[in-house]
């Protein structure tokens, strides 16, 4: 057991050295990072400061400077994947990395609807996690962006909100500005921004009056960062309303023409993808569906089996202390629908 661990570590080291050099090669860091974060469902820890994936020089620098960044990255990744798996539980694509169980059909091979969604999802999750880390004081390099005048200190002008800091750090980490300007890069950049905006959109404004005698002569407002779940709802809507664009040329890294860029502007508020998702119906056999309506969609009209099963669930919950829920286990008979 120990031997195999050492061996795998050695192999990893050997692989990572040339791989680090490779990062700056063909694919932009944006694409590579998101793919690495989403693909990594195991708990492999890479050597190096970012530890989750093979980082670029810039990323490695961020991870070394900010000791907690690795944790934030892990949290963002976990948060995104678990939210994805939960909300796509009863969808044809269940947040898997590959289509129809075929290892060759990776969702990152081309820019599918799912690929576009994952870019938005991870960007959103990363923004959210960084904003939270800024607010909890874990990250020290959060800046005061958003305070409107340059060259002044926090004491004079105050500080902007954490969402803007999260957005800035996410862009910086994904090397957003150097992602390129070919069609794929422009598409992915738009998808990333959709993700970030869905975090911004679900923020709610709260105000406090503190003027003369506590009246509203002076009022200060701030935006409250909501839970990631509510942004997930928005993202899923975006997934369903995504727009397909005609692929111009996959291989060249040429910048897109101004006309094409102008055309993209019209769909600014939508997720954009370039390739049609393969038919996923072949792989839904044996999947559990929720109800009659959902089963019709998920099972692609093949019908479903209804089985009765005893399900244990938590019940009669009560608050034991401030922060614990203690529940009994109840056994209930439930119907389970499985696709034929």
């Amino acid at each position, binding site marked *: 057991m120990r031997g195999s661990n050492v061996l795998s570590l050695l192999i990893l080291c050997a692989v990572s050295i040339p791989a680090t050099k490779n990062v700056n090669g063909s694919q932009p860091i944006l694409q590579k990072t998101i793919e690495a974060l989403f693909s990594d469902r195991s708990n492999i820890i890479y050597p190096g400061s970012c530890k989750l994936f093979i980082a670029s020089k810039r990323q490695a620098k961020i991870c070394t400077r900010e000791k907690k960044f690795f944790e934030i990255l892990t949290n963002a990744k976990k948060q995104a994947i678990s939210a994805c798996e939960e909300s796509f539980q009863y969808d044809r694509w269940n947040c898997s990395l590959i289509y129809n169980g075929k290892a060759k059909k990776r969702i990152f091979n081309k820019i599918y609807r799912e690929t576009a969604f994952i870019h938005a999802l991870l960007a959103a999750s990363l923004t959210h996690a960084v904003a*939270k880390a*800024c*607010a*909890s*004081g*874990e990250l*020290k*390099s*959060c*800046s*005061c962006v958003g*305070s*409107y*005048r340059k060259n*002044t200190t*926090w*004491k*004079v*002008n*105050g*500080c902007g*909100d*954490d969402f803007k800091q999260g957005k800035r750090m996410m862009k910086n980490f994904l090397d957003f500005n150097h992602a390129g300007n070919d069609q794929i890069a422009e598409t992915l950049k738009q998808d990333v921004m959709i993700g970030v905006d869905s975090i911004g959109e679900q923020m*709610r*404004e*709260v*105000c*406090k*009056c*503190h*003027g*003369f*005698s*506590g009246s*509203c*002569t*002076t*009022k*200060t*407002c*701030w*935006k*409250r*960062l*909501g*839970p990631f*779940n*509510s942004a997930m709802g928005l993202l899923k809507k975006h997934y369903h309303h995504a727009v397909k664009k005609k692929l111009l040329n996959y291989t060249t890294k040429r910048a897109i023409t101004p006309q094409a860029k102008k055309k993209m502007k019209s769909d600014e508020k939508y997720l954009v993808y370039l390739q049609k998702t393969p038919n996923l119906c072949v792989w839904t056999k044996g999947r559990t569906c929720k109800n009659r309506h959902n089963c019709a969609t998920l099972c692609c009209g093949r019908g479903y089996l209804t089985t009765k099963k005893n399900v244990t669930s938590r*019940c*009669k*919950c009560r*608050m*034991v*202390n*401030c*922060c*614990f*829920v*203690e*529940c009994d286990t109840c056994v209930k008979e439930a119907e389970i629908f499985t696709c034929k």
Partner: protein
Amino acid sequence: MTGTIIENLSGRKLAVLVTFLLLCQLTCFLIGGLVAPMPANAQMMIATVCKDTTTVKNDTTKWFYNRGKGACQNIGLENLHHDLSETDFVFAFQMPLPRENMILDYSRWQQNLIGVLQIDIKYHSLMEIQPRSVITIDARMAYRNKGDPEEQWRLYTRSVEKRNLDCDIEIKSEHHLYNCSAMPLFELGSLFHDYYLLNIRLPVETPDMNSHIGHIHDMSLIVINQNGGFTKVWVSLKSVFFPSIVAILVWFWRRIHMLQRKPVLLEKMLLSLGLALCLLNMPLEYLTLYFDLPFMLLLGDIRQGIFYSMLFSFWLVFAGEHMLIQDTSTQSSLKQYWRHLSAVATGCASLFIFDMCERGMQLRNPFYSIWVTDIGTNLALTFIILAGISTGIYFLFLCYMIWQVFINISHKRQSLPTMCSVRRLHYEGIIYRFKFLMLATLLCAALTIIGFTLGQVAEGQWKWDENIELEYTSAFFTGVYGMWNIYIFALLVLYAPSHKQWPAVEDTSDTQNLSEEIEFTPLQERSSEISSLTSFLKKATID
């Protein structure tokens, strides 16, 4: 016979003065808009959950914080072990947060610190929050200064407080969070120390305590402090206004004392209004840079209250003194206005009592809030409603009086064509200037009211992304503040007694003037102590 300066001032001089004052007003507005940042800054911080394994929880020398030497580990509320009890949790907030790789500290220029607590509660189908739930919070505040060792936190204040939970939820499903309204937690009137630390515990001393508050997911604190840049601009404005108002007051009072007569009521009112403004203008904020003065918030309220009540009383007396209701032989005094002024007094008194109950109590306990208990809420509402009613009554009185003045003036105006030309021109000028000043007052009042209501109405319309919007708030503050200073400055200048013999002012070469002067002699004998406008009006009534 002496009149006031406004009656004797030529149109050109008046125009120059008004232009100058308008320029000052514009400067005030622009200073706020271009130099000052937004008045206050809000910073959100998420709690670090620390584990307190000590058996004695009352120890106020033990502090939990998440940065620096001796920091605690964030245990998080998601994956907890059941062997921990509720009293083992401490929610720690260390202020201010680090930014740009620097450990920040509070500056005394930032004046005050207001804390608002936001509790995130996770929905649990079998444990919904009951309506009107009360949460009990054991809050402890500590401070530390620059140069102190990182673990040396000193107790600032401690209190066990109750707050009402006001939560609702849209989608009732697991993992979703309640939408709970933010609850005001503390108000510090002075920001004297460099670092602050807040430790929150949720005690369960009785079985009912903190048992119906659902599943706490997270806690965050929003701290609001005045921006240092805004304080600097504000204090500089005060430092300019204070000496100028003092100087003009001295000049005003000297001019009155040069007269043979005793000062009339209007002049006394003007003087006290000037004094109230001086009190408001006094740049006491400088003292907070050297001393710990937690009462500054309360003092600021009291200073503003005194100023506004003086201003309101002045308007009443100003309108009343031009109404000709009183007997000409008696010196008018404040006693005549007791009915009108009692409205002002009631309003001020109830606001003062409310402020003492809220901010006064906060001097002893920064976590105190009158709105928590039902009795407190009712009491506070009573005083606020009482203040509102008295303001309403006051404005009814004021409008009625002003209406009467205008009726009087227009009535007297009808008799103007019967007078000869120079005299008529003169009176028309006086009436015009009186109306001009009335208009200025109305304009200032309207602007202030707009400013007052704008803060209330603008809820939800605040554009966060556009920074110009934020600058505008500061500009509005400095603009309104400058406006009242300039208004009172103008009143003091224009209503100071003139030293010129007024018939000579218009045109000395005009021989007609001398003959006109004779016509006034009986009038001057009868009432030599009052300004010529009121005497003119009085003469008309006698006629």
